[in-house]
Protein backbone atom coordinates (compact mmCIF):
# COMPACT_ATOMS: atom_id res chain seq x y z
CA UNK A 1 0.00 0.00 0.00
CA UNK A 2 2.77 2.39 0.98
CA UNK A 3 4.64 1.37 -2.15
CA UNK A 4 1.71 2.23 -4.42
CA UNK A 5 1.21 5.55 -2.67
CA UNK A 6 4.91 6.35 -3.02
CA UNK A 7 4.81 5.48 -6.72
CA UNK A 8 1.83 7.76 -7.26
CA UNK A 9 3.53 10.51 -5.26
CA UNK A 10 6.67 10.19 -7.41
CA UNK A 11 4.64 10.39 -10.60
CA UNK A 12 2.80 13.43 -9.26
CA UNK A 13 6.09 15.11 -8.37
CA UNK A 14 7.45 14.39 -11.84
CA UNK A 15 4.37 15.88 -13.48
CA UNK A 16 4.36 18.85 -11.13
CA UNK A 17 8.00 19.87 -11.41
CA UNK A 18 8.53 18.99 -15.08
CA UNK A 19 12.29 18.66 -14.74
CA UNK A 20 14.50 18.20 -17.74
CA UNK A 21 16.95 15.33 -17.81
CA UNK A 22 20.55 16.52 -17.44
CA UNK A 23 22.58 15.71 -20.51
CA UNK A 24 25.01 13.58 -18.49
CA UNK A 25 22.18 11.30 -17.31
CA UNK A 26 20.37 11.08 -20.62
CA UNK A 27 21.69 7.67 -21.76
CA UNK A 28 21.32 6.08 -18.31
CA UNK A 29 17.85 7.13 -17.19
CA UNK A 30 15.82 4.90 -19.54
CA UNK A 31 17.92 1.83 -18.74
CA UNK A 32 17.74 2.60 -15.02
CA UNK A 33 13.96 2.92 -15.25
CA UNK A 34 13.66 -0.43 -17.03
CA UNK A 35 15.94 -2.08 -14.45
CA UNK A 36 13.88 -0.62 -11.61
CA UNK A 37 10.70 -1.85 -13.27
CA UNK A 38 12.24 -5.31 -13.42
CA UNK A 39 12.97 -5.15 -9.68
CA UNK A 40 9.44 -3.99 -8.96
CA UNK A 41 7.86 -6.82 -10.92
CA UNK A 42 10.20 -9.26 -9.22
CA UNK A 43 9.07 -7.85 -5.88
CA UNK A 44 5.39 -8.19 -6.78
CA UNK A 45 5.94 -11.77 -7.84
CA UNK A 46 7.83 -12.57 -4.60
CA UNK A 47 5.01 -11.03 -2.61
CA UNK A 48 2.45 -13.21 -4.35
CA UNK A 49 4.71 -16.21 -3.75
CA UNK A 50 4.75 -15.24 -0.09
CA UNK A 51 8.51 -14.92 0.04
CA UNK A 52 8.82 -11.15 -0.18
CA UNK A 53 11.73 -9.71 1.76
CA UNK A 54 12.21 -5.95 2.27
CA UNK A 55 15.95 -6.05 2.42
CA UNK A 56 16.28 -8.17 -0.66
CA UNK A 57 13.92 -5.93 -2.56
CA UNK A 58 15.83 -2.80 -1.66
CA UNK A 59 19.18 -4.34 -2.51
CA UNK A 60 17.97 -5.86 -5.78
CA UNK A 61 16.35 -2.59 -6.77
CA UNK A 62 19.48 -0.54 -6.18
CA UNK A 63 21.87 -3.10 -7.61
CA UNK A 64 19.69 -3.57 -10.70
CA UNK A 65 19.74 0.16 -11.40
CA UNK A 66 23.44 0.51 -10.71
CA UNK A 67 24.47 -2.52 -12.75
CA UNK A 68 22.30 -1.43 -15.68
CA UNK A 69 23.81 2.04 -15.59
CA UNK A 70 27.28 0.59 -15.24
CA UNK A 71 26.82 -1.64 -18.26
CA UNK A 72 25.62 1.27 -20.36
CA UNK A 73 28.53 3.38 -19.14
CA UNK A 74 30.97 0.62 -19.96
CA UNK A 75 29.39 0.19 -23.39
CA UNK A 76 29.74 3.92 -24.02
CA UNK A 77 33.41 3.80 -23.09
CA UNK A 78 33.96 0.77 -25.34
CA UNK A 79 32.07 2.31 -28.23
CA UNK A 80 29.27 -0.26 -28.18
CA UNK A 81 26.89 1.72 -25.96
CA UNK A 82 23.93 1.37 -28.31
CA UNK A 83 24.27 -2.37 -28.67
CA UNK A 84 24.87 -2.96 -24.98
CA UNK A 85 21.86 -0.81 -24.10
CA UNK A 86 19.76 -2.91 -26.44
CA UNK A 87 21.14 -6.06 -24.84
CA UNK A 88 20.36 -4.84 -21.34
CA UNK A 89 16.86 -3.85 -22.37
CA UNK A 90 16.30 -7.26 -23.99
CA UNK A 91 17.49 -9.15 -20.91
CA UNK A 92 15.45 -7.00 -18.55
CA UNK A 93 12.46 -7.31 -20.84
CA UNK A 94 12.72 -11.10 -20.80
CA UNK A 95 12.88 -11.03 -17.00
CA UNK A 96 9.90 -8.69 -16.77
CA UNK A 97 7.94 -10.99 -19.05
CA UNK A 98 8.83 -13.96 -16.90
CA UNK A 99 7.83 -12.22 -13.71
CA UNK A 100 4.60 -10.93 -15.22
CA UNK A 101 3.82 -14.47 -16.37
CA UNK A 102 4.31 -15.74 -12.82
CA UNK A 103 2.14 -12.92 -11.43
CA UNK A 104 -0.51 -13.76 -13.98
CA UNK A 105 -0.55 -17.39 -12.93
CA UNK A 106 -0.96 -16.32 -9.33
CA UNK A 107 -3.78 -13.93 -10.02
CA UNK A 108 -5.72 -15.84 -12.67
CA UNK A 109 -4.60 -19.40 -11.99
CA UNK A 110 -3.80 -19.67 -15.66
Amino acid sequence: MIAVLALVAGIALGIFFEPTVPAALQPYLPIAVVAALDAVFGGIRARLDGIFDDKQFVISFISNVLVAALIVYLGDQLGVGGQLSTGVVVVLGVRIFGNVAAIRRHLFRA
Partner: protein
Amino acid sequence: MTRRDTGLGWPSDPVDRGQIGAEERSTHDETPSIDEKRRQKRFSAAGATIGVLLALLGFALVVQLRSNTSDPELAAARPEDLVRILSDLEAREQRLRNEISALEASQRDLASGARGRQAALEEATRRADEVGILAGTLPAQGSGLLVRFAPGGKPVQAEAILDAVQELRGAGAEAMQIAGVGAGPAGTGGAVRIVASTAFVDADGGLLVEGQRLAAPYTITVIGDPQTMRTALNIPGGVVESVETDGGSVIVEEPGTVDVDALHVQGPLRYAKPTT
Protein backbone atom coordinates in the same frame (compact mmCIF):
# COMPACT_ATOMS: atom_id res chain seq x y z
CA MET B 1 8.70 -25.19 -8.79
CA THR B 2 8.78 -25.00 -12.59
CA ARG B 3 7.29 -21.51 -12.44
CA ARG B 4 10.16 -20.18 -10.47
CA ASP B 5 12.62 -21.40 -13.06
CA THR B 6 10.96 -19.45 -15.85
CA GLY B 7 11.38 -16.16 -14.00
CA LEU B 8 14.93 -14.99 -14.17
CA GLY B 9 14.50 -12.37 -11.46
CA TRP B 10 14.98 -12.77 -7.81
CA PRO B 11 14.19 -14.51 -5.56
CA SER B 12 16.93 -16.59 -7.02
CA ASP B 13 17.44 -18.82 -4.07
CA PRO B 14 14.16 -20.28 -2.87
CA VAL B 15 15.83 -22.65 -0.45
CA ASP B 16 17.48 -19.81 1.40
CA ARG B 17 14.24 -17.92 1.58
CA GLY B 18 12.50 -20.94 2.97
CA GLN B 19 15.07 -21.27 5.73
CA ILE B 20 14.68 -17.67 6.83
CA GLY B 21 10.95 -18.05 6.81
CA ALA B 22 11.24 -21.12 9.02
CA GLU B 23 13.54 -19.28 11.38
CA GLU B 24 11.13 -16.42 11.70
CA ARG B 25 8.27 -18.72 12.34
CA SER B 26 10.18 -20.48 15.08
CA THR B 27 11.16 -17.25 16.84
CA HIS B 28 7.67 -16.03 16.53
CA ASP B 29 6.42 -19.07 18.37
CA GLU B 30 8.82 -18.66 21.26
CA THR B 31 8.84 -14.89 21.98
CA PRO B 32 5.92 -13.24 20.24
CA SER B 33 6.13 -9.78 21.82
CA ILE B 34 9.82 -9.09 21.09
CA ASP B 35 9.59 -10.49 17.60
CA GLU B 36 6.52 -8.39 16.90
CA LYS B 37 8.32 -5.21 17.95
CA ARG B 38 11.38 -6.06 15.89
CA ARG B 39 9.30 -6.87 12.90
CA GLN B 40 7.37 -3.64 13.26
CA LYS B 41 10.56 -1.59 13.40
CA ARG B 42 12.15 -3.39 10.52
CA PHE B 43 9.01 -3.07 8.51
CA SER B 44 8.78 0.68 8.96
CA ALA B 45 12.43 1.29 8.04
CA ALA B 46 12.37 -1.00 5.02
CA GLY B 47 8.94 0.26 4.03
CA ALA B 48 10.23 3.83 4.04
CA THR B 49 13.18 2.82 1.87
CA ILE B 50 10.91 1.00 -0.54
CA GLY B 51 8.62 4.02 -0.63
CA VAL B 52 11.50 6.32 -1.42
CA LEU B 53 12.77 3.99 -4.13
CA LEU B 54 9.38 3.66 -5.73
CA ALA B 55 8.81 7.38 -5.56
CA LEU B 56 12.14 7.82 -7.33
CA LEU B 57 11.06 5.27 -9.91
CA GLY B 58 7.80 7.07 -10.59
CA PHE B 59 9.60 10.38 -10.80
CA ALA B 60 12.23 9.05 -13.20
CA LEU B 61 9.57 7.30 -15.25
CA VAL B 62 7.58 10.48 -15.76
CA VAL B 63 10.69 12.53 -16.43
CA GLN B 64 11.88 10.05 -19.01
CA LEU B 65 8.48 9.86 -20.66
CA ARG B 66 8.25 13.61 -20.86
CA SER B 67 11.74 14.09 -22.21
CA ASN B 68 11.07 11.40 -24.80
CA THR B 69 7.77 12.83 -25.99
CA SER B 70 9.01 16.40 -26.09
CA ASP B 71 9.71 16.46 -29.82
CA PRO B 72 8.22 13.49 -31.68
CA GLU B 73 8.88 15.10 -35.05
CA LEU B 74 12.63 15.31 -34.52
CA ALA B 75 12.72 11.89 -32.86
CA ALA B 76 11.12 10.34 -35.93
CA ALA B 77 13.41 12.14 -38.39
CA ARG B 78 16.14 10.28 -40.23
CA PRO B 79 19.80 11.07 -39.51
CA GLU B 80 20.25 12.78 -42.89
CA ASP B 81 17.29 15.03 -42.16
CA LEU B 82 18.66 15.79 -38.72
CA VAL B 83 22.01 16.72 -40.23
CA ARG B 84 20.27 18.96 -42.74
CA ILE B 85 18.15 20.58 -40.02
CA LEU B 86 21.25 21.14 -37.94
CA SER B 87 23.18 22.74 -40.78
CA ASP B 88 20.15 24.88 -41.60
CA LEU B 89 20.02 26.07 -38.04
CA GLU B 90 23.74 26.78 -38.03
CA ALA B 91 23.50 28.77 -41.26
CA ARG B 92 20.57 30.68 -39.82
CA GLU B 93 22.48 31.38 -36.65
CA GLN B 94 25.41 32.67 -38.70
CA ARG B 95 23.11 34.93 -40.71
CA LEU B 96 21.51 36.28 -37.58
CA ARG B 97 24.89 36.90 -35.99
CA ASN B 98 26.01 38.85 -39.08
CA GLU B 99 22.80 40.81 -38.96
CA ILE B 100 23.33 41.58 -35.28
CA SER B 101 26.86 42.86 -35.87
CA ALA B 102 25.75 44.96 -38.86
CA LEU B 103 22.91 46.45 -36.85
CA GLU B 104 25.21 47.16 -33.94
CA ALA B 105 27.67 48.90 -36.24
CA SER B 106 24.92 51.04 -37.75
CA GLN B 107 23.59 51.79 -34.28
CA ARG B 108 27.06 53.00 -33.25
CA ASP B 109 27.29 55.10 -36.42
CA LEU B 110 23.91 56.64 -35.81
CA ALA B 111 24.64 57.36 -32.16
CA SER B 112 28.01 58.98 -32.85
CA GLY B 113 26.98 60.77 -36.04
CA ALA B 114 23.58 62.01 -34.92
CA ARG B 115 24.83 65.54 -34.43
CA GLY B 116 26.81 65.57 -37.70
CA ARG B 117 23.78 64.15 -39.47
CA GLN B 118 21.60 66.96 -38.14
CA ALA B 119 24.10 69.55 -39.35
CA ALA B 120 24.37 67.86 -42.74
CA LEU B 121 20.59 67.85 -43.06
CA GLU B 122 20.38 71.57 -42.31
CA GLU B 123 23.16 72.29 -44.79
CA ALA B 124 21.44 70.19 -47.45
CA THR B 125 18.12 71.95 -46.84
CA ARG B 126 19.80 75.34 -47.15
CA ARG B 127 21.50 74.32 -50.38
CA ALA B 128 18.26 72.93 -51.77
CA ASP B 129 16.57 76.29 -51.09
CA GLU B 130 19.35 78.19 -52.82
CA VAL B 131 19.35 75.91 -55.80
CA GLY B 132 15.55 76.09 -55.94
CA ILE B 133 15.68 79.89 -56.13
CA LEU B 134 18.36 79.81 -58.82
CA ALA B 135 16.44 77.20 -60.82
CA GLY B 136 13.24 79.18 -60.46
CA THR B 137 11.28 76.47 -58.64
CA LEU B 138 10.97 78.41 -55.36
CA PRO B 139 9.53 81.90 -54.78
CA ALA B 140 12.03 84.48 -53.55
CA GLN B 141 11.96 87.82 -51.83
CA GLY B 142 14.62 90.46 -51.30
CA SER B 143 16.00 93.85 -52.21
CA GLY B 144 15.91 94.56 -55.92
CA LEU B 145 14.48 96.62 -58.75
CA LEU B 146 11.40 96.94 -60.91
CA VAL B 147 12.40 97.67 -64.51
CA ARG B 148 9.53 98.83 -66.71
CA PHE B 149 9.83 98.85 -70.51
CA ALA B 150 7.28 101.04 -72.27
CA PRO B 151 7.22 101.05 -76.09
CA GLY B 152 7.41 104.24 -78.05
CA GLY B 153 6.71 104.28 -81.79
CA LYS B 154 8.08 100.80 -82.32
CA PRO B 155 7.43 97.83 -80.07
CA VAL B 156 10.16 96.82 -77.66
CA GLN B 157 12.33 94.19 -79.30
CA ALA B 158 12.89 90.81 -77.67
CA GLU B 159 16.56 91.52 -78.19
CA ALA B 160 16.35 94.53 -75.88
CA ILE B 161 14.71 92.44 -73.16
CA LEU B 162 17.38 89.77 -73.59
CA ASP B 163 20.08 92.41 -73.33
CA ALA B 164 18.52 93.72 -70.16
CA VAL B 165 18.35 90.23 -68.66
CA GLN B 166 21.98 89.55 -69.55
CA GLU B 167 23.03 92.87 -68.14
CA LEU B 168 21.15 92.24 -64.89
CA ARG B 169 22.67 88.76 -64.60
CA GLY B 170 26.09 90.24 -65.14
CA ALA B 171 25.35 92.67 -62.34
CA GLY B 172 24.61 89.84 -59.94
CA ALA B 173 20.85 89.33 -60.26
CA GLU B 174 19.75 86.26 -58.37
CA ALA B 175 16.09 85.87 -59.36
CA MET B 176 14.05 87.48 -62.11
CA GLN B 177 10.58 87.42 -63.54
CA ILE B 178 8.95 89.27 -66.40
CA ALA B 179 5.37 90.39 -66.54
CA GLY B 180 3.38 91.91 -69.36
CA VAL B 181 -0.20 92.93 -69.71
CA GLY B 182 -2.81 90.24 -69.79
CA ALA B 183 -1.99 86.82 -70.96
CA GLY B 184 -0.20 85.14 -68.02
CA PRO B 185 -1.37 82.07 -66.17
CA ALA B 186 -3.81 82.66 -63.34
CA GLY B 187 -2.27 83.49 -59.97
CA THR B 188 1.01 84.80 -61.29
CA GLY B 189 -0.22 88.20 -62.37
CA GLY B 190 0.90 87.40 -65.90
CA ALA B 191 4.50 86.94 -64.73
CA VAL B 192 7.02 84.42 -66.08
CA ARG B 193 10.08 83.35 -64.11
CA ILE B 194 13.30 83.93 -66.01
CA VAL B 195 15.70 81.02 -65.73
CA ALA B 196 18.73 79.91 -67.70
CA SER B 197 16.67 78.30 -70.44
CA THR B 198 14.14 81.12 -70.83
CA ALA B 199 13.87 82.38 -74.43
CA PHE B 200 12.39 85.67 -75.66
CA VAL B 201 10.76 85.74 -79.08
CA ASP B 202 9.11 88.62 -80.93
CA ALA B 203 5.50 87.91 -81.77
CA ASP B 204 3.07 90.31 -83.47
CA GLY B 205 4.12 93.40 -81.54
CA GLY B 206 4.17 91.39 -78.32
CA LEU B 207 6.62 89.01 -76.72
CA LEU B 208 6.58 85.22 -76.46
CA VAL B 209 8.26 84.02 -73.26
CA GLU B 210 8.30 80.33 -72.46
CA GLY B 211 5.21 79.84 -74.53
CA GLN B 212 3.39 82.74 -72.80
CA ARG B 213 2.28 85.69 -74.85
CA LEU B 214 2.95 88.98 -73.13
CA ALA B 215 1.93 92.45 -74.26
CA ALA B 216 3.76 95.71 -73.59
CA PRO B 217 4.51 97.35 -71.26
CA TYR B 218 6.79 94.78 -69.68
CA THR B 219 8.00 94.77 -66.10
CA ILE B 220 11.08 92.85 -65.02
CA THR B 221 11.22 92.20 -61.29
CA VAL B 222 14.76 91.40 -60.24
CA ILE B 223 16.38 90.57 -56.91
CA GLY B 224 19.98 91.56 -56.46
CA ASP B 225 22.12 94.52 -55.43
CA PRO B 226 19.99 97.55 -56.56
CA GLN B 227 22.88 99.98 -56.99
CA THR B 228 24.99 97.67 -59.14
CA MET B 229 22.06 96.69 -61.35
CA ARG B 230 20.87 100.23 -61.81
CA THR B 231 24.39 101.24 -62.84
CA ALA B 232 24.61 98.32 -65.24
CA LEU B 233 21.35 99.28 -66.93
CA ASN B 234 22.34 102.91 -67.28
CA ILE B 235 25.84 102.55 -68.74
CA PRO B 236 26.39 104.50 -72.02
CA GLY B 237 25.31 102.38 -74.99
CA GLY B 238 23.53 100.06 -72.56
CA VAL B 239 19.96 98.84 -72.27
CA VAL B 240 18.30 102.08 -71.29
CA GLU B 241 20.04 104.06 -73.96
CA SER B 242 19.34 101.60 -76.78
CA VAL B 243 15.62 101.33 -75.87
CA GLU B 244 15.31 105.08 -75.73
CA THR B 245 17.02 105.31 -79.10
CA ASP B 246 14.13 103.24 -80.47
CA GLY B 247 11.66 105.68 -78.93
CA GLY B 248 10.71 103.56 -75.95
CA SER B 249 11.35 104.31 -72.32
CA VAL B 250 12.81 102.36 -69.41
CA ILE B 251 11.74 103.22 -65.89
CA VAL B 252 13.83 101.79 -63.08
CA GLU B 253 12.11 101.76 -59.69
CA GLU B 254 13.61 100.79 -56.39
CA PRO B 255 10.75 99.84 -54.04
CA GLY B 256 13.03 98.27 -51.43
CA THR B 257 11.79 94.71 -51.12
CA VAL B 258 10.46 92.95 -54.19
CA ASP B 259 8.78 89.55 -54.62
CA VAL B 260 9.68 87.10 -57.35
CA ASP B 261 6.84 84.64 -56.97
CA ALA B 262 6.34 83.25 -60.47
CA LEU B 263 7.63 79.69 -60.67
CA HIS B 264 9.41 77.82 -63.39
CA VAL B 265 8.04 74.30 -63.84
CA GLN B 266 10.93 71.94 -64.40
CA GLY B 267 10.02 68.75 -66.22
CA PRO B 268 11.79 65.52 -65.31
CA LEU B 269 15.32 65.20 -66.66
CA ARG B 270 15.52 62.61 -69.41
CA TYR B 271 19.25 62.31 -69.98
CA ALA B 272 21.22 63.97 -67.21
CA LYS B 273 21.60 61.85 -64.09
CA PRO B 274 23.29 63.01 -60.90
CA THR B 275 26.69 61.46 -60.24
CA THR B 276 27.44 60.50 -56.71
